[in-house]
């Protein structure tokens, strides 16, 4: 079952138009109809969804929306529902902080079961806040195919058991429109392409994550992102970038929209979203600058979830056939070990794909360096992003 909200409906429509599946006139007609439907029937839909959920075991999943959610729905959730009779209610979140805020406000995890969680830092935060579970890995035999290198960082935090299964990984590199920026120029400038003054008003940036901005600030101020010594220099570069930025985007769908409509020519970007744009035929190139940011995502199970069904779903999602189909759909490499599972050519061609199965070619955030400064530097980023 799919929980549709207005934003998601809009994202789906824009993607369909981007893919050429729907013409502009139909797009606007459907957009209007979607808006009216949301305005008039939101309450009724919610009520019907509640009744439907009461009919059997249902799992609430929250993820990143757009092509990522589409890939999960088509290749994992729908087949799982058909195979088991259980229901997966998938929704789009605005970020894990939003979910944590809701859970804290409600005082319980009702309505939240599985999150498409980003990075080791959030894994640690969920666990430390008491929302973790102990997965019975015997019920998830497909875990045997997952790369050891991607499991280890999670196991370091909870050595006795896991509360999530690593599912995919990617990079946050730089996307640029090849009509306005050449490959040679992009590679010569690296992270400093985001600071090119001639592109003022045509540069974007991800506004949703302080650490992403700081990582690029570190690269631009010639520091090791995993050992930042001079935070002032980092934020000075972030200010320099801010003064050139048209818009800080806050979701993958917005990123794709800004690039596709040529509102911006250059931005840091998520590798999979750029691959999706390329598949749609847009002249967008992608590069990972030296020491570019890599990240891994997991399927985090929250306390209070029906464990047997959750483990069954995770195992289903890690089945090689399912995991590779999702990877091809969402354009992010799977967490499965390429030494154990034969990857398709499409997966091998994805940005950030690591053929060694060790992830040694990628640089991830070191949580021991980043987590202790998060409170102070998040606040700093919010100020810098608003002109401070």
């Amino acid at each position, binding site marked *: 079952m799919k929980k549709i909200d*207005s*934003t998601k409906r*809009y994202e789906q429509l824009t993607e369909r138009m981007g893919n050429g599946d729907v013409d502009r006139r139909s797009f*606007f007609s459907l*957009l*209007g109809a*979607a*808006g*009216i439907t*949301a*305005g*008039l029937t*939101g309450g009724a839909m919610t009520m019907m969804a509640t009744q439907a959920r009461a009919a059997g075991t249902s799992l609430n999943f929250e993820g990143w929306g757009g092509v990522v959610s589409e890939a999960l729905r088509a290749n994992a959730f729908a087949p799982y529902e058909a195979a088991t009779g259980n229901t997966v209610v998938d929704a789009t979140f*605005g*970020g894990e*902080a*939003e979910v*944590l*805020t809701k859970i*804290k406000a409600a005082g319980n995890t009702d309505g939240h079961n599985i999150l498409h969680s980003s990075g080791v830092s959030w894994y640690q*935060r969920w666990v430390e*806040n008491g929302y973790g579970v102990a997965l019975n890995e015997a019920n998830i035999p497909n875990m045997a195919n997952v790369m050891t290198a991607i499991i280890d960082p999670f196991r370091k935090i909870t050595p006795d058991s896991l509360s999530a299964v690593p599912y995919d990984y990617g990079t946050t590199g730089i996307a640029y429109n090849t009509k306005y920026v050449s490959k040679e120029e992009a590679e010569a400038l690296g992270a400093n392409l985001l600071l090119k003054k001639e592109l003022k*008003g045509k540069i974007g940036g991800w*506004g*949703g994550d302080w650490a992403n901005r700081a990582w690029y600030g570190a690269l631009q101020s010639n520091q090791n992102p995993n050992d930042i010594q001079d935070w002032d220099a980092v934020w000075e570069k972030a200010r320099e970038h*801010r003064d050139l*930025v*048209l*818009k*800080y985007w*806050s979701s993958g769908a917005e990123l794709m*929209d800004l690039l596709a*409509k*040529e*509102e911006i020519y250059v931005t840091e970007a998520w590798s999979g979203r750029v691959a999706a744009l390329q598949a749609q035929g847009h002249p967008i190139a992608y590069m990972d600058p030296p020491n570019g940011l890599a990240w891994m995502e997991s399927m985090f199970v929250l306390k209070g979830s029906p464990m047997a069904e959750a483990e069954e779903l995770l195992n289903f999602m890690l089945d090689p056939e399912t995991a590779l189909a999702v990877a091809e759909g969402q354009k992010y490499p799977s967490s499965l070990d390429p030494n154990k599972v034969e990857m398709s050519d499409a997966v091998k061609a994805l940005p950030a794909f690591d053929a060694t199965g060790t992830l040694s070619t990628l640089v991830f955030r070191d949580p021991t360096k980043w987590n202790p400064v*998060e*409170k102070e530097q*998040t*606040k700093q980023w*919010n*100020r810098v*992003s*608003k*002109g*401070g």
Partner: protein
Amino acid sequence: MAESKEFDPRPWYLLAPSMLAIIALVVIPMSFILVYSFYENIDLAIDRVAFQFGNWQELLTDSYYHTAIWKTLRLSIIVTVLAAVLGYIPAYFIAMTKYRHKWLLLLLLILPFWVSFIIRTLSWIHIMGNQGAINGILMWLGLTDTPVSMMFNEFAVIVGFIHVFLPYMILNIYVSLEGIDENLEPAARTLGATPWQAFREVTLPLSLPGLAAGSLLVFVLTGGSYVTPLILGGPGDFLFGNLIYDAVVVELNWPMGATLSFTLLVLLGLVVALYSRLMGMNQLSKAFG
């Protein structure tokens, strides 16, 4: 004969359900928020129960918050003035028209409320964006070779606010205009007033309660917004509400978020109090018919 001073409880019985609802849904939650503002945020999402003034001290001494208050007041005033000017004309037209299907005009006015607020706001990207309708027409007419940049700036935010809040202004002014005796303007004309004088000295003053009520609503709604700047604004386009969002959802600092929320409540409450002082709250009920 001396007037009876006996206490009549009946109005209180009638008011009781509303008052209980206000206490349960506004006063008690806001009290919790006030109490929370004295708590201390130890780390992201981790608060300590305390009675300390750190959050309030930060609010009062940090120019970051003062800038946001100034930006919010400034933008609220701009949106309110523009909405008043732009809203008066259609309201006047609807009130004065002899068109027998006036209900249709009013229906058109409330039609946007049937469409999700988010969708309505996002629609501006397809209208004013680089590949939007306006740029498409300008380029088709050969008036420009490259798209004119209209999105993700203060202008786009103002347009978004006006789009969403204009019906509130029009409806308030319309109700006020509808209540004016339609013989007054002709009477002024027969006494020698020009059409403009009749409007300025008769209709406009009598419609002021509606104009003021609409302005109050638009001002308060704009001042408390955060989604519109998030969708349509650039990096520098933010309101006080965006700082609350940052504190609560991004920094996971609820005590600071509570401090900022209570401050916004007080600031907007002051505007309502000022309105009450100048216009009297009974003018609101007049405006709403």
